[in-house]
Structures are given as structure tokens and as C-alpha cells.
């Protein structure tokens, strides 16, 4: 039941396995004092929430004594069955990180109903252990952060950032109780200059290996680094305007825990000019588009040069041109007429015949 407490089983051996041991004690510390059952071997003591085995002395190698502890724990077990991290490097200044999570609550399977009413009543009242929220610690200056899944954006997330780190708090679409699954994708961009270094002609990119969330165990971790186009082919992924595909470095690891969050580095060679290739490709593309447009506008595509509609079109163009010419001439005539009239006015006012005659002459000249 949803309201039940979560009980877990821990299995180990009470003896250190592969070596001869002179003296040994094992203490198992449990989160809660309630212990359902545990294996009793010699010298077993329980103190509160701690079980002590031993001390044992002078054990031969490969001595084996199984112990099983059945205890209560209401911690959520966030297990990523598979995490694929895709890191795409663009020399235009961005590192795009995309992380695809397949998530499961690895704790005890929940039986029976899930009641929203009980869930709303409060997490601590009934000993619930659902995964409600996760915090991803992203590198500083992460930008364009998104959180979505196959069917769209998930609106329950918060982002804080300062100069030291960026923190993304996410809630799954629904509370993940024991045995339930969910899947989502986190993506963010990082400024390239924080991660890319150059050393004697080679470029070096330094990134974190594991998952940015603490308290998450990853069963299969796959890290893919997509280098810019123009290097040795390992495998290929196509992005905007790629022709040959990008080289990819794939790293795989099973059973990764936060302690595996080491830095790793990828060395590669890349000619800076190669990054200009894509814009250069666009230029002739658009050029040809426009040329095609111009050609289309000017080429005469009619099949029959004698068809009525074609002739009509030609005549129409001719008529338009003539009309325009006539209009132009009329306009010029009007202007000249205006000038003449103005000079006549001047004449009637000032009586300066010479000016009027000059104007007349000019008008006659231009009318011809």
C-alpha cells in the first residue's frame, strides 16, 4: 500500500572475503531504529539503529557467512536505469548538453492503490517515500535550460543561478513511488570558453563525467561527445547544415554513483576555418535562390509565341509603356506651361519683356 512503510533488505557477508583476517568487526548503521529482522550469527549486538557483528578473529580466506538485514527506510531510491548524456560542441561558442534520463524508483514496489488524497495529506504522516523533487547542480553560466519529456515541457521546475553554480530543481510530472517509472530530458547550454582549452595545436575539452544530480544511482551511463564536423569519423549524428556528420566519442559505464563524477577530457584537432563552412554554404544557397527568382521573372516561358494571350500580354506591356511615355510628355508640357505662365505673370507685374522672351525661348527649346 501507498501508506505502508518501506522495508529494505541488505545482504552482505559478515566476514571479509578474500583474505585471511586476524580481527574484524562489521557494524551496520540503519536509518531507523525499527529493524524487521536480521541474521543472527555469533557475537551479534544491536544498539539502537546499529547492528554490530564481531569481533571475529583469525578467519581463513574465503570464509563466508551471509547476513541479511531487513529494516525500515523511507528514503526515496532514485535510480536512473539509463542516462544518456549528449554533449555537442559548437565552435561558435556553445556547448550543448542534453541528458536523457530513464528513471525508476528503485525502492520497494508499491502495492495497491495510489491515493492522491493520502498523498496530499502530507509526506510524513503516512511514511511515504516518493521521489518528489531532484536537484541538478549544473555548471555556472549554464543558459537556455530546459526540462521536458517526449510529450512536451514539464512546468514544475525552478532555476537558481549565481556565479558559483546553477541549480535546477525539478519535479517529475507525478510523484514517483516505489516501482514507478518516469523519463525526462534536461538540456542546457554552456559557454564554450569555460571548457575549451588549446595546447600545441590540439584542442582539449574538459567536462564532468557523471550526472549532475546527487543521490542518483545510474545503472547505465552513456556519455557521447559530438565534436564539430571535420575530424575522424567514429560514428555520426546530423545537426543543422551538416554534410558529413559529426564525429562522436562514446563513453559507457555501468553502475555509476555520484563518486564517479570525475572530470574527463577529449583531445581533438580542429581547424578554425572549418567552422565558417556552414555560413559559406548558406551564401551560395541563397545566391542561387535569388538568381533563380530573377531568372524566373525574366525568362519567357510561354510555349507558343503566337497564342492570343501571349500576344495580348505583349501588346498590353507595349500600351503601358506608351501610356507612361505620354504621361511623361504631358507632365513635361505642363511644367513648361507653368513656367510660361509664371513668366507672363511676372511680365504683367514688372513689364520685363526680356525675361519673358528668354523664358519663351527656353520653353520653345524644351518643347521641341
Amino acid at each position: 500500500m501507498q501508506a505502508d512503510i518501506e522495508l529494505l533488505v541488505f545482504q552482505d557477508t559478515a566476514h571479509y572475503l578474500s583474505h585471511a583476517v586476524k580481527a574484524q568487526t562489521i557494524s551496520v548503521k540503519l536509518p531507523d531504529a525499527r529493524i524487521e529482522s536480521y541474521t543472527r550469527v555469533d557475537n551479534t549486538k544491536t544498539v539502537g539503529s546499529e547492528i554490530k557483528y564481531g569481533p571475529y578473529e583469525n578467519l581463513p580466506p574465503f570464509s563466508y557467512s551471509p547476513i541479511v538485514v531487513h529494516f525500515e527506510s523511507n528514503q526515496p531510491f532514485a535510480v536512473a536505469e539509463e542516462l544518456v548524456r549528449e554533449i555537442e560542441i559548437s565552435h561558435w561558442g556553445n556547448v550543448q548538453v542534453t541528458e536523457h534520463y530513464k528513471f525508476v524508483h528503485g525502492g520497494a514496489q508499491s502495492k495497491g492503490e495510489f491515493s492522491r488524497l493520502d498523498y496530499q495529506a502530507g509526506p510524513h504522516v503516512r511514511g511515504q517515500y516518493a521521489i518528489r523533487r531532484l536537484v541538478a547542480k549544473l555548471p555556472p553560466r549554464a543558459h537556455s535550460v530546459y526540462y521536458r519529456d517526449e510529450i512536451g515541457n514539464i512546468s514544475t521546475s525552478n532555476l537558481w543561478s549565481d556565479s558559483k553554480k546553477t541549480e535546477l530543481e525539478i519535479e517529475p510530472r507525478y510523484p514517483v513511488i516505489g516501482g514507478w517509472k518516469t523519463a525526462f530530458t534536461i538540456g542546457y547550454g554552456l559557454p564554450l570558453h569555460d571548457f575549451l582549452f588549446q595546447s600545441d595545436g590540439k584542442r582539449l575539452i574538459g567536462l564532468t563525467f557523471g550526472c549532475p544530480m546527487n543521490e542518483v544511482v545510474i545503472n547505465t551511463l552513456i556519455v557521447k561527445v559530438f565534436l564539430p564536423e571535420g575530424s575522424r569519423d567514429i560514428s555520426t549524428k546530423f545537426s543543422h547544415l551538416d554534410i558529413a556528420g559529426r564525429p562522436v566519442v562514446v563513453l559507457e559505464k555501468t553502475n555509476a554513483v555520484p563518486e564517479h563524477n570525475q572530470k574527463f577530457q577529449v583531445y581533438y584537432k580542429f581547424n578554425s576555418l572549418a567552422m565558417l563552412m556552414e555560413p559559406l554554404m548558406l551564401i551560395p544557397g541563397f545566391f542561387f535562390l535569388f538568381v533563380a527568382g530573377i531568372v524566373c521573372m525574366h525568362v519567357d516561358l510561354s510555349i507558343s509565341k503566337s497564342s492570343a494571350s501571349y500576344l495580348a500580354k505583349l501588346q498590353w506591356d507595349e500600351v503601358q509603356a506608351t501610356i507612361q511615355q505620354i504621361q511623361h510628355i504631358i507632365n513635361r508640357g505642363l511644367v513648361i506651361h507653368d513656367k510660361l505662365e509664371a513668366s507672363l505673370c511676372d511680365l504683367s507685374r514688372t513689364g520685363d519683356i526680356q525675361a519673358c522672351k528668354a523664358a519663351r525661348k527656353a520653353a520653345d527649346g524644351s518643347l521641341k
Partner: protein
Amino acid sequence: MVGKPISEHVNGGTNTSKTTSPKPFSSDLLSNLSFKTLKLKTKQQELLIRVSILCLVYVLAFITRLFSVLRYESMIHEFDPYFNYRTTLYLTEKGFYEFWNWFDSESWYPLGRIIGGTLYPGLMVTAALIYWALRFLRFAVHIREVCVLTAPFFASNTTIVAYLFGKEIWDTGAGLVAAALIAICPGYISRSVAGSYDNEGVAIFALLLTFYLFVKAVNTGSLAWSLASAFGYFYMVSAWGGYVFIINLVPLYVLVLLITGRYSMRLYVAYNCMYIVGMLLAMQIRFVGFQHVQSGEHMAAMGVFFLMQVFYFLDWVKHLLSDTKMFQAFLRITVTCAVGVGAVALGLGTASGYISPWTGRFYSLLDPTYAKDHIPIIASVSEHQPTAWSSFMFDFHILLFLFPAGLYFCFKRLSDATIFIVMYGLTSMYFAGVMVRLILVATPAVCLISAIAVSATIKNLTQLVRAKDKVPQTGSTKGASSAKGSSKGSIDQSQPFQKNGAIALLFGAFYLLSKYATHCTWVTSEAYSSPSIVLAARGAHGNRVIFDDYREAYFWLRQNTPPDAKVMSWWDYGYQITAMGNRTVIVDNNTWNNTHIATVGRAMSSYEDEAYDIMRSLDVDYVLVVFGGVTGYSSDDINKFLWMVRIGGGVFPVIKEPDYLVNGEYRVDKGAAPKMLNCLMYKLSYYRFGELTTEYGKPPGYDRARGVEIGNKDVKLEYLEEAFTTSNWIVRIYKVKPPNNRW
């Protein structure tokens, strides 16, 4: 002395920046040069202005539809688009033949659905082609983005077609106005915002294109245009069931032309070519098949086709016979024979079942009350309701008043083309009145006719204004000239009032049009951009609260149920469950099997034990109900419940509507009918709701959607158990328990 100032005046506007020192001669030369190079021919200027206006309108039509992406996200909206998206995804992944032969076992369990034969593939193929083209050009787009932006893209294309159409029926100005009007008309935007990936998105483009090409064909009598319109018709048939409108409007139009004595060879060529080629092409769509020759809805077109032949024959005979009397007799005999043969053929066809009778949807268009009485499943859809006046006003705004004015102008200058647009406008307005969703079909006609009104009015007004303006303009070239002003003044005096009136009217038109633009933008951003999957509300502090419960539930289904689980829900959510939840559904929005839907309706309205038997027989694993009682979301299953009862009762008479009503009143509180309080839908919606306090100061179990305290607070489930409820209780999913062990 006179020459100089003039040349300087000409320079003044264009050339001051180029010639820093005003030297008369060189500046004169320069000015001539620059003027000639700068000055385009009037034709080119006009072309430049026209093209730039069209480009702006094109961009505007696209970006005004992006509100939904800005407000929410790049996602598919509503119900049907999810099916379209799912099939498009399938098409791009598996290729066309797989898509065409797809038998979908995930819907209509256990019947399944033959997808290729029961859908209009135009939209999916279009989106897939765009996707493949972009992929070929090395743009790494996701198919979802292509689907989301398909409708705005086609809306932009529609503006171009509207321009051409307006140009064809009136003039260039009307075309430009029509393009601008249709770009932002809410009636069209409602179905073509980004994410509204539905058939109508491309179909309106195809509809208008077909009409434009047909009118062009009628105007020119050209076989090429007529063929083009046949292909336009083919695209329309492949995209939307609304093609029936074309295949009935065009014959009607031809008939009107015949009756009004406008029969011509142009019409003969245009209609025959369009009808025959269009019909043959349409038969290639499997969903349509041979309906063009077998269904009653398409018989009008065929009848008119034969009528055209009779007309042509009569024309020929008239040409041969010089005697009018003989021709009159011949005419009478031929017409009688033709009509008789047609009637007999139709009667025989209908009687033998070769010609199928009209479908219910068609009837409900002609008779608005038909669906209510006979087909509850059509009447239950809100977009099939008759249109309210307010929604006309909402969707058309000033176009509603410009429409009659445009009709007036059309009648004043009657031609084949204007007759067509008038008929298109009037018939589609009637249909828009019958069904809300058909406002969409009327929108292009309304925009075009209004554009004629606007364009013609403004043209007249500007002519008036410019007639006066010419005087100061010619005067200005000369400078201040008192003599000329006075000489022209005598002419102007005759109409000073007209001039001012024209200016005032121009301002009025400008005001109205800007109001229209404001209204359209407001409607688009506020009313038509909601995806309806994600609900948004204003919180107490004015902040935006998002209810993403649908996707929460669908994603839960997708992740936490067995892959072969069958989900029963009311048919509204079928497409979404298959597309987002990736699970098999019993019924979905393709309401092809009324009995199946009625079975689900019956299960929902039965007592739990009876419902359990039905659900067992349908292999149901999960039941999904939508419940708005916590959030006050009113379009939930309890409010739709009476339709389930009606549809269920339509097939299974055990379900009787009065059992769920009290004195004809539908209620869920203490006074509700006992059957209502114990039916499956009630139980599933209100399970454990009685323990929840939804609103401060109200008793527990207060239903906020209906504003009452529920009548049955102690709901016990025997055969089902709660599997999941979303954070705002909007979607509740129950698991059907396996049968008890017998021993």
C-alpha cells in the same frame, strides 16, 4: 532666371545630400541622372509596393499565429491534432506504403482501425514532405516542430491565394485588402494557430485555391486553369471532408449561371474539365473512393454535368435549326426527356442501393434540428452547435458589417466572378449559422467580400480627395502661385463639403480597420492560443497557474502501465491517450462505430457490477475519467455525462435518460437521482472526494465545477481501484481488478 529655381527645386528633394555645393549646371545633370536611375516606371513602383505589402502580410499571418508558442510551448493542441501528429510520426518513420496500409490495433479495441482507408492523408503527407525537404536541406528539425508550424505556414499561403482571388474578382487593391484581412481574421486564426495541426489548417488554403483556380478558369475559359483547379480540388479532397462543399457549390454556381443566361463556352470547358479530372483524382483517396458516383451528396455535381451536355447539345441544335418554332418544340422534348431520365436514374440508383442516401452530417447541415433528434453523437460535439450571434461578432468583427456592403458592390458590378463570390459568401454564411465550426469556411468569403467593400470605398474616397489635392500639387512645383490657385478655385468650390466628407470618411475607415486589427490581435492572444491540454489560470496574486494534469496522467499511463493495457475513457480523450499515453483505447475521436461508443456510454452509466461485466468483455484494464470538481474545470465528464447516457441509450434501451434526472433536472447533490448517485461515472469521479475540502468555508466534498456539495460522499469501489490521480484531480485513472479466484 526662371530655369534655375526649378532645377533647384527638383534637386531639393532628392539630391541635396549628394551635391554639397549647389552648382547649377552640374547639379542639374546629376539630378537628372539620379532621378532617372532612382525613378522606376510606374508599373515597377506599383509592383514593388504590392510585393512588399504581400510579403509583410505573409509574415504577419505567420507571426500572429505564434502567440500560442510564446504563451505556452511548441506543442500540438486539442484532440484531433494528436491523431494527425501520431500518424505523421508514423509516416515519417515508416514511409508512405506502411502508412497507407496501416492497421492500427491501438484504437477501437478490439475492432482496430484501418488508418489508411479512414483518413484524409493530405495533411500528414504535406507535413512529411515539408519535413523531408527540410531534412534534405540539412535542417535538423523535429517532426513536431514541422507539425506545429504547418497551419501558420498554410495560413500565410492562404493570404497569397486571397490576394490572387481578390485580384481576379475585383482588382489588385481588393486583393491586397483581402490578403490583409484574412491574415488576421479570428475566424480563420481559431483553426490555424501554431500547434493546431488539423485538417482545416491546410484545407482552407486548398478550398480557396480551388475556388480561385476555378473562377480563373471560368474567366479565361482556359483548359490549363481548369486542370489546375482540378488538382486543387484533389488536394482539398485529400485534406478535408469539407470538400463536399466545393463539389456542391460549384455545380450550384454553374446552375445559377445557366439560369441567368450566362452560359458560355468558357464555363463549359471549366466545369467539365474540373469535374471529370477532379472526380477521377479524388477517387485515388481511399477514404473517398467511389463516392463521387455513388453517394447522394455528390449527385448534384453529376446532374449539372449532364445538364451542361444537354445545354451544349441544344446550342448546337439551335445553331442547325433556323426555325424557332421547331427548336422550341425540340427544346421542350429534350428537357423533359433529360429531366425524366435523370430522375429515373437517380430513383433507380437510390432504390437499388447503388447510390447511398445522404449522411446524417449532411442532413444536419440542411436541417439544424436533425442531429438533435436523430444523431446524438453529432449533436454532442460543441463545435457542431448552431452559432450564436456573439461568436459571429467575435470572429468577424467589422467584417460582419462590411459583408453586406461588399455584396452591394458585387451586385453593382455583376460578372461571372462576382456571382461566384456572392454565392460562396451567402451559402457559407448560412452554414456558418448552422454549425460553429463552419465559420471557418465562411471566413475567406467574408474577407474577400469585405475587402471589395473596403477597397471600393477607399478608392472612391481617395479619388475625391486627390481630385482636390491635384491643385496644390501642381501649384507646388511652381512655388507660391496665387493666380493658378484662384483659377482652379472656381472648380473646387462646387464640392468642398464632399472633399471634407471624404477625408472624414477615410479617417473613419482607418479607425475601423485599426480597431479590427486590435480586436484580431486581442482575440488571437487571449482566446485562440490555448492548447486546451495545458490549462492556465490566474492565481490569487495575478501570477499564472498552470494545470498540466492531462499530460501528467498520459505520461503516467505511458510509463507505468503494461504496454498492452487497454484504457477505457469517453471518446474525447481517445486520440490523446493513444498519442501521448501510447496505450490502446476502446473508443476515440474518430467516431466511426456508434455501437462501440454506446457500449462505453452504457458502462459509464451502469452500476458498478454491470459495468464490470461490460469492461471485462472489452478487456479493459484501466478506466480514465476527467473530473473538474477540485479545480472548477467545467468541461469534465460529469458535465458530459448526459451525452453518454443519451448515446448509450440510443443503442441500449436499458439506459434511460429520465433515470438520471430529477424532474428533468440534472444534479449531482443530495437531490440527485439514485441511479445517478451510484452509476460508474459518478463513483469514479467522486471516489474519496467526500473527504476532501476544496474550498475554504465549504463542507468537504464541495464540487467547485458545479457549485454543490455532492450527494454521495461515501463512494466504495468493489471492482476497481484507484491507480492514479493527477495533482489537481483533473484526470483520475482506475485499475480494473482481475476477477476473484473462484475457490
